[in-house]
């Protein structure tokens, strides 16, 4: 069985079990390793990717469900919001172990793409699905505010 969709802006056809979660299709079939496995139950956000611009948990999204749609992983980030988020992440030295950070960057980018001036409450609401066991949360919050400023500047 193969599933065709747009992966990081390019047409892709993956030959895999259609029930396979998108996470494993992206990692093991497409060979893109930036998206991480953390819980397998949409509880931690480490596997966050964008589906038609919306952040989703790829660990519970069957490959078949993305047929004909647009999937963006951390490797395909290109918007000015994404670049601002990644620059702010470096500026504020956000990552520690770094394992959850692809997911954090994906969620933060999606937030800024629809809300150019997120409040702390907006950040709580957009980011509380992304667990960081190193608890880099304060820096993530600061970095999102910095990124929002730099996109507007």
């Amino acid at each position, binding site marked *: 069985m193969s599933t065709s969709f747009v992966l990081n802006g390019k047409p892709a056809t993956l030959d895999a079990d259609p029930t396979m979660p998108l996470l494993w299709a992206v990692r093991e079939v497409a060979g893109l390793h930036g998206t991480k496995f953390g819980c397998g139950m949409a*509880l931690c956000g480490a596997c966050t990717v964008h589906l038609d611009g919306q952040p989703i948990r790829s660990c519970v999204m069957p490959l078949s469900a993305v047929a004909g749609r647009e999937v963006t992983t951390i490797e395909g980030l290109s918007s000015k919001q994404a670049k601002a988020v990644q620059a702010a992440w470096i500026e504020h030295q956000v990552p520690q172990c770094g394992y959850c950070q692809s997911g954090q960057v994906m969620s933060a980018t999606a937030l800024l793409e629809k809300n150019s001036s997120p409040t702390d409450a907006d950040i709580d609401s957009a980011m509380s699905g992304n667990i960081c066991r190193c608890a880099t949360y*304060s820096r993530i919050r600061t970095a999102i505010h910095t990124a929002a400023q730099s996109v507007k500047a």
Partner: protein
Amino acid sequence: MSAQTLIPPEPARRAFLKSAGTVTAVALTIGFDWASSTREALAAAPAAGVPFVPNAFLRIGADNTVTVIAKHVEMGQGAYTGIATVVAEELDADWAQVRVESAPADATRYANLAFGKLQGTGGSSAMANSWTQLREAGGKARAVLVAAASKEWHVPASEVTVDRSVVFHAGSKRQATFGSLVRTAQGLPVPDTVQLKDPKDFKLIGRQAPRVDVAAKCDGTAQFTLDVEMPGMLVALLKRPPRFGGTVKSFDAASASAIPGVVKVVQVPAGVAVVAKGFWAAKQGREALKVEWDESNAEKRSSATLMDEYRRLAEQPALPARKEGDAAAAIRNAAHKVSASFEFPYLAHAPMEPLDAVVKLSADGCEIWAGDQFQTVDQGNAAHAAGLDPKRVSIHTLYAGGSFGRRANPGSDYIVEAVSIAKAFGADGTPIKLQWTREDDIHGGLYRPMYFHKLEAALSADGKLTGWRHVIVGQSIMAGSFFSAMIKDGVDPTSVEGAANIAYAIPNVSVELSTTKTGVPVLWWRVVGSSHTTFAVETFVDEVAHAAGEDGFAFRRKLLDHHPRMKAVLELAAEKAGWTDAPLPAGKGRGIAVAEAFKTYVAQVAEVTVGEDGHVKVDRVVCAVDCGTPINPDNIAAQMEGGIGFGLGAALYGAITLKDGRIEQDNFNNYRVLRMNEMPRVEVHIMPSSEPPTGVGEPGVAPVGPAVANAIFAATGRRMHVFPFSKNGAV
């Protein structure tokens, strides 16, 4: 053969993991037998492109790249950056040209000097143990480069200076990059001794050097074990017994083998593994696999049963961990007595990267890729599982997606599982990645032990603390492992650290330990003993202060005159938090706590808001830390912030519980950890110091629980005696 017979303990020179008391460390030295081709390459005459390798920690390339070899795993704590900073400082290297590479498993060169002869990371010791070693490594390399310039330019070495990877001679206005001196440097001897810098001349240490790993961790390119891929690699998931101590009675692989992509089903000591062409096939195969378990020796008790037993044991005679004066008499004769007991559950580490390891095993060698935290131990245990000499086991240490102690365990559980699967598969050189799921992690044991603490204190009529008795009941982390040599007179130092070395001046002190046994495997968890002892001590001392009618800060401060560093962080935290400012409005409270862990001193003041429904929101934590010479202040702050979030999540929600021997939690839905909306504002203040550096990865965890508990008391009058606070109806 067990790890115990493989690894004989011997009296050690240095304390492992903990400062207090007389301890021994494990001595074992396993090197790696380099392939002869590598040996020949290294022995070859200097040639273009061959780097200058002055010692085991450093390589300087003709392209000016300075590669620092890190003997410690990078698991988020910033070890790579800290190690590189210290080497680069004494080398006077250009930070932009510094790279870090992980050391191979080779205890002859890369032992953790705090662990004796064992290579590994833990006990917040990475910088403390290697401080002088790395300074000398950098300094000696610098001396050779200076000598090379002196030789090339025919000028005295004393007139040669170095700045940002460039060597200068002012008199002749000559300069050369490190890279251009590599060939000459290769032919020169490395000095035995070197004059280290005066700290006032530090250019990198004490500054905000950016972390070497951050950029790759922002764009998804950082390589974790999960990301290891090689031709023909298979993925294994292991079905383990539902109760600790269970074993395989029989299994039926037919349904599992029928799943497309499943290659083989193999039995190993830890269970039955499904080896497949990818994770999804392996997972489906494992779900289809039928295993009948022999649970005749399995642990079938519940947490509540265990805690009842612990409570009873707290009333029985226990072994002394510290005894000064006569605490029992002081309490018996006290004008006022204060008493309390505390209950702590098992806790899982739950690092974001579930445990994983890639093993390539053949008849004559075993190659391992993992976020390896305990190289020498893992090398020995892997060799035993594989039936090979430890010198035939090589380890590639990759970034670990968190650990918090989990990846450093005496039995090397996940490594041994991976090796035994590769062996059962046929040891044919097929690379196999063992992948744990989150449920495997939560169910998988090696938890922070459950504990019961009972405390009693004596107050004189004028409010002086005259007696202190602290009884701790719980499992030993070190018993049954080769670390058991550190257990002295029945007292495991990791059970009582933070309690036995209570810093307060009290004339009569008795700290006692009753060690229990259960079938639940336990392990150190970030900040180890102080993850529970600091809570008991710092919450109880607050209760005693309250009983004496005194302010919690003032009461502690008076008892710390003999302990200037601890007193100083307490005062700094209180000052920065505005402790003596106007009281907070109703529904809000401030709490304070102080701890020493791994020779680092940390005090924290928490501010909380408690809703009418009892919901606790931690608004702010002010943290003061004295970790000796601050190597990277921004990383120290990051570790304090992270430690606070980690400890706070456990204090509010963390609990692994057993029901008839089965773990009741499965994933992050019912093993709750801190999330973004619950993270307080954190302010970190670092004490200036020229003492040798101590660790920062763990100590920040210790005071946050009691600081928050004391703040909840200030806001509500309710004490938190049962962990997590959600069990007290406080969340």
